């Protein structure tokens, strides 16, 4: 069974049963989520640019079991207009550990693209997150569905929710807002925009999460 499928199943199972007090004390808890978004991608050239707009739905799942982390996500990229970037689906699978003040996520993303040679593209995916009292820090390589090359973000929990704002190397920003609604249900808004070499990507998604707020 692939790590991704395992992660989804375990994540769903974890959400079905309320997390134990010990689990909630950890930095992250089990959670599933769905979102809808738009991606703009392309490259900047002198006086012009090449750009594509894509519809980007995603599902995510994360299971935390006595500190052991399994997580996965699937992000679709469906072009809004023809003649540009191909339809693609990116799966992410990561394993790791969640402590009380830090979490480590290590894995890979695999992207399948329609009518492309090669059809599959595999990249590593890493994330390290730490909490330091009132705020936290996270760093990631091909994080966020494998779409953000390298980021360093500040994490701020507030009574209104959990917010993060980060720098994307070499030039860009990434921001996430997790706002609880009722009980285990929350709203997640996420956006990034960055430039890599001469290329650019921007994404905005809005979705729901269920499970641990973080």
């Amino acid at each position, binding site marked *: 069974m692939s790590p991704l499928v395992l992660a989804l199943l375990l994540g769903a199972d974890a959400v079905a049963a309320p997390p134990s007090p010990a689990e909630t004390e950890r930095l992250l808890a089990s959670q599933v989520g769905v979102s809808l978004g738009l991606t703009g991608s*392309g490259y900047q*050239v002198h006086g012009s640019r090449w750009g594509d707009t894509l519809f980007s739905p995603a599902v995510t799942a994360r299971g935390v079991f006595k500190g052991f982390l399994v997580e996965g996500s699937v992000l679709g990229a469906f072009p809004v207009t023809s003649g540009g970037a191909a339809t693609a689906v*990116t799966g992410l699978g990561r394993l790791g550990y969640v402590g009380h003040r830090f979490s480590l996520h290590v894995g890979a993303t695999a992207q399948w693209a329609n009518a492309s040679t090669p059809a599959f593209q595999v990249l590593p995916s890493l994330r390290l997150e730490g909490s330091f009292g009132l705020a936290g820090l996270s760093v990631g390589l091909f994080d966020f569905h494998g779409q953000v090359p390298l980021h360093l973000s500040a994490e701020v929990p507030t009574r209104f929710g959990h917010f993060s704002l980060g720098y994307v190397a070499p030039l860009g920003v990434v921001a996430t807002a997790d706002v609880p609604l009722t009980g285990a249900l929350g709203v997640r808004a996420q956006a990034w925009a960055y430039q890599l070499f001469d290329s650019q990507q921007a994404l905005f998604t809005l979705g729901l999460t269920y499970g641990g707020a973080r």
Partner: protein
Amino acid sequence: MTRLLFGALLFLACAPRPGLDGTDPDLATLGSGLPKGFLFGAATAAHQVEGGNVNDWTDWENSSFPNGTPHIKLGEVSGLAADSWNRFDDDLLLLEQLHANTYRFSVEWSRLEPQKGQWNQAAMDRYVDWAKRLRQKGIEPMVTLWHFTLPKWVRDQGGFLEDVTLADFEAFSRRVAEQLGPHVDWWCTINEPNVYAVKGWLAGEWPPGKKGETATQAQVIANLFRAHGRVAKALREVDTWDADGDGKATLISVAHHVRVFQPATSSPLDTGIAGLTDDFFNESVPRALVTGHIKLSVPGTVDIDEWTPGLAGSIDWLGINYYSRDIVRADLGDPSLSKQFVRPGRPTSSLGWDLYPDGLALFLTRFQSYGVPMVITENGIADADGSQRPKFLKQHVLALEHAVANGANVKGYVHWALIDNFEWAEGFTPRFGLFTVDYEHGRARTATPAVETFRAIQSHIPR
């Protein structure tokens, strides 16, 4: 930060594309959207049509890769090619039949200077005669000084990797300008510096047959830029004859091969590598020649970043050779960092190149920001039986009209090619000619259906 904001706005404003895919433009008025005095003609290059040249390609054509595969498909050699060296009268008649008002041809360095400092005046006189007779017929000669082939003595001294070759090329160009200058205003110093370097040092398909030498490839391109700068200065010093009476004795450019590099997907790697490839291949050339800034960068491999004295403002116009589009899928194990391919189902030429007329409009729109006029110095299709070429020509002229309507300052369109040619590593199989050449029967020239298309468009261009 401005560029980043542009990125964020990609949601709202993608690059507009003319949408010419699948269209079959109406020939009734095509050409009427081009500016008055527009140059509309055809091109060749010496080694590809003249025949009888002895240069570095002669040796390359007669040798093989280490595995025994001939360097040229089917083991062909250029040989007599279309024998244009001896059939200029025929070719001139073809240009007249087309109603062309410009002809882009190249002079062969190895023919004019077979040994360093030894000049073949008879050959020079023949080129001078060609230029004179073209002008007498109302056909503007557009002369390319270097189109891929090197005299063997230049190859033996290291070609364009060595500074001595820059000096030798400048001396050669001065000599040509002294003799052709009274009849020629439009100069193309160098043909496709990027293609020459990629084919010779990255793909290993052309001499010197090096593979994966990314850094050397960049050095060759940079040296070709420097060579262009020196030659442009020399041309302006030597050619002070205003042959066509427009007040300008020299109109100088390179012929820059551009390709649309389109990311296969929206993944950061595909878009990143497509952008990197685009900058290296497409953008580096006008940037260097207009601003003097040579910037050629492949992360971790090569980073040339210099301002070259004398290079800024070295072109009076920008020559654009446009043929096709490549879809870019990142592959970090490949020397070019990607696999480039054509999407299934796309219309293609007989060489398998994507037929994508929108790309021409995109480049003409994009490069107008450099503030120099543009001329399409090559655009054409390998078409085995000539049946695709009329539509190809119509679609690309329509793309050109779209760009002009959007403000692009385009002065001319030169179709590749006037006649079938020796297409380098592909040999004689690809048929690019508006007039096909029967290599089996006396190299007779026969009009393809696109000749009528060309004439119709020409008749609609405002006088």
